[in-house]
């Protein structure tokens, strides 16, 4: 019996993305094996978020192809989860934490159908996983920043996807939330899920992630953290001046 799972979770070939003909991601090849926890790092404006959005078809690709588990995105939409940046929504929106979590199931529900008992139970379970079960009926504006981020992660968890993109989940959260999210990420990896995280903090890359992609418009390096996250690569990504400013050299 041949191995049923394809060897590559995310396969990006020759991807180029441009805003008004200004390249933001340039001729990028990226192959992510399944079951890894990967950070995407790079300076501001290096195209990290754009890379994710282009992979998900949220911004148009100027050239190149993207495959998930050997298939184009449209065929495997439900196997791919996404956590946008926390600042991308209006947290004063009248909705509850439970309701927000249920939104993760809308894709599986399809048009018109409403969430039922089973969906509620799954959402509550996801909220328990992120420690927000007692906040289920709160309006989302009443949460702290860290709790908001965790509710976003809960929404992704109910998607029950095989591959997750997370855009800066550690941005402006407290230490407790950061630890909780890291735990969840590692749990997901132990379940053979692939998680790709846009990350800012170079100090924690080695602790949190087993794979890393260094990006500055072009792909600088990608692979297991031990191999790719070298000083030379970091220097090539950030430029030596920036590196000194970060106190990494």
């Amino acid at each position, binding site marked *: 019996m041949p191995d049923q799972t394809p060897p590559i979770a995310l396969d990006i070939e020759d991807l180029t993305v441009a805003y008004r003909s200004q390249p933001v991601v340039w001729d990028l090849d990226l192959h992510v094996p399944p079951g890894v926890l990967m950070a995407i790092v790079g300076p501001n404006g290096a195209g990290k978020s754009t890379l994710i959005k282009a992979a998900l078809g949220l911004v148009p690709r100027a050239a190149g192809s993207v495959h998930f588990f050997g298939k184009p995105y449209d065929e495997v939409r*439900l196997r791919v989860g996404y956590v946008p940046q926390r600042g991308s929504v209006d947290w004063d929106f*009248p909705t509850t934490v439970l309701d927000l979590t249920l939104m993760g199931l809308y*894709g599986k529900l399809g*048009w018109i159908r409403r969430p039922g008992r089973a969906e509620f139970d799954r959402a509550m379970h996801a909220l328990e996983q992120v420690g927000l079960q*007692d906040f289920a009926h709160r309006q989302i504006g009443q949460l702290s920043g860290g709790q908001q981020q965790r509710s976003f992660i809960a929404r992704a968890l109910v998607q029950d996807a095989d591959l997750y993109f997370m855009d800066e989940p550690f941005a402006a959260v407290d230490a407790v939330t950061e630890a909780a999210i890291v735990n969840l990420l590692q749990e997901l990896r132990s379940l053979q899920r692939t998680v790709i995280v846009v990350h800012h903090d170079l100090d924690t890359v080695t602790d949190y992630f087993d794979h890393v992609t260094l990006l500055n418009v072009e792909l600088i390096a990608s692979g297991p953290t031990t191999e790719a996250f070298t000083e030379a690569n970091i220097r090539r990504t950030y430029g030596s001046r920036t590196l000194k400013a970060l106190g990494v050299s």
Partner: protein
Amino acid sequence: MQRELPSSVPLMTDSNSRRPALPGGIWRSLGITLMAILLFVLITNQFFNVRYDYTLLVVALGGAVLGLLSGVIGSFAVLRQQSLMGDALSHAALPGVAIAFMLVGRQMGALLIGAAIASWLGAQFIRAVTSTTRIKQDAAMGITLAAFFAIGLALLTIIQGQQNASQAGLAQFIFGQAASIRLDSLLTIALVGSAILLITALFWKELKLLTFDPVFAATIMRTQPVEALLSTLIVVVIVMGLQVAGVILMVGLLIAPAVAARQWSRRLDQMVVLAGIFGAFAGGTGAIISAADSGLPTGPLIIIMASIIVGVSILFAPERGVVWELWKQRRERVSFARRNVLISLYRHAQSHGDNYAWAPQELITGLYDGPGKRALGWLEQHNQAVKSGTRWQLTGSGLQAAEQFLNEHR
């Protein structure tokens, strides 16, 4: 900022968490609205001699249904931060009304279709300008609003110059005239209205997700059709509402009920239902007043009714309203003062080496002035301090309370 609790330890139970999702709130507001309507009908009937005959009932129902639709669909416009888009689109409808009139004459259906087309063109124009030039959304909306309105007015003045008899029918589109609603147009309004409500209910979850988080929505469904659906609903509701609210004030009917409803609700379904109720109330009562007193245009009356609801909501809504906020601040100030006075007495006693040492009242009033005095009174009433002349002493329970505060704060 709330204090964060570690996720591994059992979390403090949130007092709201087990409360069911407030359907009672909806029924309560429905009840209040029904009573308000009853009161309104009684007062207008008894004191202003408004006769609730068949014609007035039709007009009132028409206004109410249009208000309801505006409230429901306006909620989405407000939450998408597109409030003033409604203003631009309603102004943009005017040339459509005029052209339709020139082509087929005074047929409500044709006028509305013309209005919808013009309004839709206005939306496309705004999009085209913002996407191809450096001109921002606000200026693009201003250009559209003024230019389309001017074209509409120019056409209307031409029509008025040619057919004097029919001009009255068109002027209503500027300020709204509910009295023009007849039974057949009420039936049309009801039919289209039910369709709008049905569509909103059917695509509820898609509309909600698109409004809340369009980026995430795009990863799990095709958003263009939903986007188009929502814009169409907004345009249709604006165009129908023009009959009662008029081109200039339609934006108020679209957003005021939604803003008021937002203050009372924690969930979108509550907000939409409440906005519908508020809109219906404003639309119905505005239409009745204007029909009863033909000198007054309907639009301004509806807007004033809706604004009163907004004012009440902003002031008195629980957990958000201005009054609630002030009351909360006051309560916090008072309990803060009590605690400080208690701790001052305790510190004074400690510095004298005697838990029950007497402290002069000036010590407290010097530090906390009036609030300190009131706090002393409260402590005396609650048996935490006793007074002798102008000197104060902690009681046993006062001592305990002070120690507890200090421990909590460490």
